């Protein structure tokens, strides 16, 4: 990430300085302001979901969820701490429901639980890949946009979308197994 970011940004900055020097600073400052508003937006979303998750946790609902997904989690992640397994289950459930924004706080909590060193473990890598390739039942944003632009059948992409996401999930999990071996 260090090298990629530095090389790409430096090259693009140099090019931009050459083409349009007066816009360099405004582009950079705008990007940072954009980050502030994005972070604030995320703060609101996390606020709702972390609150709801805490309630669900106190009701022992998350324990039940964790028990439902136990076999799958064991296969994907091996032996992880109980707390991590709960967050992972919560994350999986949010992903399946297509509430992508709810999946983020639980994934972050799970990763905080499993990662101690500066190198990403197999568990963290698996969690990241599962989230990055997650099976999405309903791509709500895309369907909404299609409908608003007058598509004759906005949801006719459902089936190809489901197959494509299932395909990427399987490939992703298989690749993690190839790269890191079986779960311990």
């Amino acid at each position: 990430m260090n090298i990629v970011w530095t090389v790409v940004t430096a090259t693009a900055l140099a090019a931009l300085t050459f083409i349009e020097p007066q816009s360099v600073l405004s582009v950079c400052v705008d990007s940072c302001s954009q980050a502030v508003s994005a972070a604030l937006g995320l703060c609101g979303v996390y606020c709702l979901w972390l609150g709801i998750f805490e309630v669900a946790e106190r009701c022992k609902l998350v324990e039940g969820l964790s028990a439902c997904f136990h076999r799958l989690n064991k296969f994907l992640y091996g032996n992880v701490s109980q707390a991590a397994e709960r967050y992972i289950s919560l994350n999986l459930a949010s992903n399946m429901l297509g509430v992508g924004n709810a999946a983020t706080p639980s994934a972050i909590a799970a990763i905080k639980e499993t990662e101690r060193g500066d190198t990403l473990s197999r568990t963290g890598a698996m969690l990241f890949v599962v989230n990055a390739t997650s099976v999405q039942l309903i791509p709500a944003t895309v369907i909404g946009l299609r409908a608003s632009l007058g598509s004759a059948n906005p949801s006719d992409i459902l089936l190809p979308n489901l197959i494509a996401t299932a395909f990427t999930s399987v490939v992703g999990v298989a690749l993690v197994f190839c790269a890191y071996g079986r779960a311990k």
Partner: protein
Amino acid sequence: MNYVVPLLLVAVLVTGLCKRVNVYDSFVLGARKSFNLSLSVFPYLAAIFIMVNVLHASGADVWITKLLAPPFECIGIPREVVQLVLLRPFSGSGSLAILTDVYNAYGVDSYVGRCASVIMGSSETVFYVASVYFADTKVRKTGWAIPIALLCNFLGAIAACLLCRIM
């Protein structure tokens, strides 16, 4: 489908009530964590946004798209959606804008429009997700995680174009 998440919210609160949990206190306790979380995410977002916006402003993205369009066409990705495939790992809002452009230029229900829809639906903003997920940890070496996720997104794009051809 519109009812699932709202009903889930109600169900959690009602369960709390039945189990005599202090719902209000728990909610506040959980919600409090969100501020620190977004605070640790924020600088990473700024870095990603600077990279994407500078790249876009310098016109380098158009160049790269032009350069990669022929090889992408060989593996079945139409040149109209190449920019979408390339930008998708970096920026959610940026790729959504490109998706809208594709719809407007080629039609929502055209082959290209449907391709773009499935590519968008089946991929993820990998770099964005990576910066957010690892923001609050000491993790600096992510090993195979990002390459695997990128490769999957790319294979997903190829699959999307193929699937739209036959479905």
